[in-house]
């Protein structure tokens, strides 16, 4: 067998490794081994790539390659080790962006190499140019889009949707210009046109992401992840590399699936999430800032009362929202749960799919606080249990338990599946104020006779609850 056949064979093994890595994620038990298998597969494929003659005999460029890899590793490892779990969405966004950028650069350089080769005369086949254009286009959008998503998540600019006059018109104009340039590039194979198109694709990534904000970012990140996958697959076509096609397509398919699941969990269509600038509209109408903007009475309790209530309950369900993560209250929540469990109270966490800032984010935050994963219940699994729960403890969540999603047609969140905190005997809200959640709408549940409010920072309140349970 020739060397290149061996390379292809090793690439096939790596592709199998990636598929098994994803398969491992179907259970928390095998997930870590799966990921290690994936990392091993990647290492093997990279090592084998060094044996390809054009790489092996690259001389000074081989040195450059090693330098780039060393610098990359030196930056990536500490960053990945140190990042806080609350900052995970940003980290994923940035790793995703650089991947998209790399794919775009591969497609671009592949085209330059093809057209500048000595033996090259005339024009590459149309499908070759189309592959290159797709790789560059999707990669660039993913790169700049992820960069903006990172800046938003890191709160370097507002996380809210950013809108400006004639936004849709400008976006459409850029989109049409890109299509025009792409067609022109296919017809002429002109490098300059391709470069202009790349720049516009970068612009498109920025203006596409700017109006998406707040609670929609989880959907956005998984969509961008899928884009990078597809860009990698497109570069795989350009290079005739099976491994890149398989790996990129796996990621593309997974990202699209996740994106659809996320929009479904919010009761909205993907188009609505991406193009409606949802948050900005309702913020204007629901901007009830500060304490008790409403004159309606709510029942405010003390941590001592609630502590006693929970200490003598049979079943307590903790419903965490992003507010819990913001207050860094995961550890306090776990402490409370442990204490209750010791007293014989059945405790579990009911987790909404869009709680947190990326799909499944809340689970990671709680896992970090040493909550065993069998205490984390998905919405569908938790809802039947809530009817028999004595206490539903809602920590920093609001919209995800708002009954308006079920019973108020016309509400912006109507149709969104919710966690049925309203079914529990007692409902306790840990909130900083009466301020509405992201959707900016009032929550009837706050005024329910079964509901008690505990105002204040979630971490402080939970710590007080722990003390109250201890002395109960």
């Amino acid at each position: 067998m020739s060397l290149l056949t061996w390379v292809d064979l090793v690439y096939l093994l790596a592709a199998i490794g990636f598929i098994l890595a994803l398969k491992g994620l179907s259970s928390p038990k095998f997930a870590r081994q799966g990921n290690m298998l994936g990392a091993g597969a990647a290492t093997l494929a990279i090592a084998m790539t060094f044996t390809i003659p054009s790489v092996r005999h690259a001389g000074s460029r081989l040195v450059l390659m090693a330098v780039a890899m060393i610098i990359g590793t030196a930056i990536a490892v500490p960053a990945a080790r140190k990042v806080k779990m609350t900052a995970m969405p940003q980290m994923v966004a940035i790793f995703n962006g650089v991947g998209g950028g790399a794919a775009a650069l591969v497609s671009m350089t592949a085209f330059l190499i093809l057209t500048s080769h000595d033996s090259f005369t005339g024009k590459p086949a149309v499908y070759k140019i189309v592959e290159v254009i797709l790789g560059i286009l999707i990669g660039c959008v993913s790169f700049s889009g992820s960069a903006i998503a990172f800046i938003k998540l890191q709160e370097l600019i507002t996380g809210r949707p950013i809108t400006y006059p004639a936004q849709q018109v400008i976006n459409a104009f850029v989109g049409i210009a890109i299509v025009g340039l792409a067609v022109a590039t296919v017809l002429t194979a002109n490098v300059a046109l391709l470069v202009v198109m790349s720049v516009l694709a970068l612009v498109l990534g920025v203006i596409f992401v700017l109006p998406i904000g707040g609670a929609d970012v989880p959907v956005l990140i998984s969509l961008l992840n899928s884009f990078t996958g597809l860009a990698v697959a497109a570069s795989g076509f350009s290079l005739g590399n099976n491994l890149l096609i398989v790996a990129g397509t796996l990621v593309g398919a997974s990202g699209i699936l996740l994106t659809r699941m996320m929009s479904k969990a919010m009761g909205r269509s993907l188009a609505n999430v991406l193009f409606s600038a949802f948050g900005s509209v309702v913020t204007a109408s629901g901007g009830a800032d500060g304490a008790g903007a409403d004159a309606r009475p709510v029942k405010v309790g003390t941590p001592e009362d609630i502590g006693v209530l929970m200490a003598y309950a049979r079943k307590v369900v903790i419903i965490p929202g992003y507010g819990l993560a913001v207050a860094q209250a995961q550890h306090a929540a776990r402490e409370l749960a442990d204490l209750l469990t010791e007293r014989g109270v059945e405790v579990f966490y009911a987790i909404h799919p869009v709680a947190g800032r990326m799909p499944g984010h809340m689970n990671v935050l709680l896992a970090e606080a040493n909550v065993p994963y069998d205490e984390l219940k998905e919405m569908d699994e938790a809802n039947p249990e809530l009817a028999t729960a004595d206490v539903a403890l809602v920590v920093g969540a609001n919209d995800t338990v708002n009954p308006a999603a079920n019973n108020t047609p016309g509400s912006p969140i109507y149709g969104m599946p919710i966690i049925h905190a309203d079914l529990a005997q007692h409902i306790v809200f840990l909130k900083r104020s009466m301020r509405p959640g992201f959707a900016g709408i009032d929550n009837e549940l706050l005024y329910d006779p079964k509901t008690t409010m505990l105002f204040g920072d979630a971490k402080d309140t939970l710590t007080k609850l722990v003390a109250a349970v201890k002395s109960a």
Partner: protein
Amino acid sequence: MTVGIIELLTIFVLAAFVGNEVVSKVPSILHTPLMSGTNAIHGIILVGTMAILGQAQGDVQTILGFLAVLLATLNVVGGFVVTDRMLEMFKAKPSDRPAKSAGTPEEPGKGGAPS
């Protein structure tokens, strides 16, 4: 490695089905590691960037290739490391829950002080 476009398309379509099948079995509790894990997998573009830098001619192509290798390395290395860190935290209920793991110190004794 000159393979026809149809063969490549075949691989693409089959991989899409496999991806859809495998990922639909991932429980929502693991969706964040899934995203960061798939993120690491597309970092294998590093293989492509290496091939490109190897074939590059002239300064422009070399610079683009160098940047591509750098970005791809960030992606693949960072992706796998961060996913591993996350997955390490997912533990089943132990008999006595140890407070060890991933450099997450316990909240320093705030629990005792009622106010």
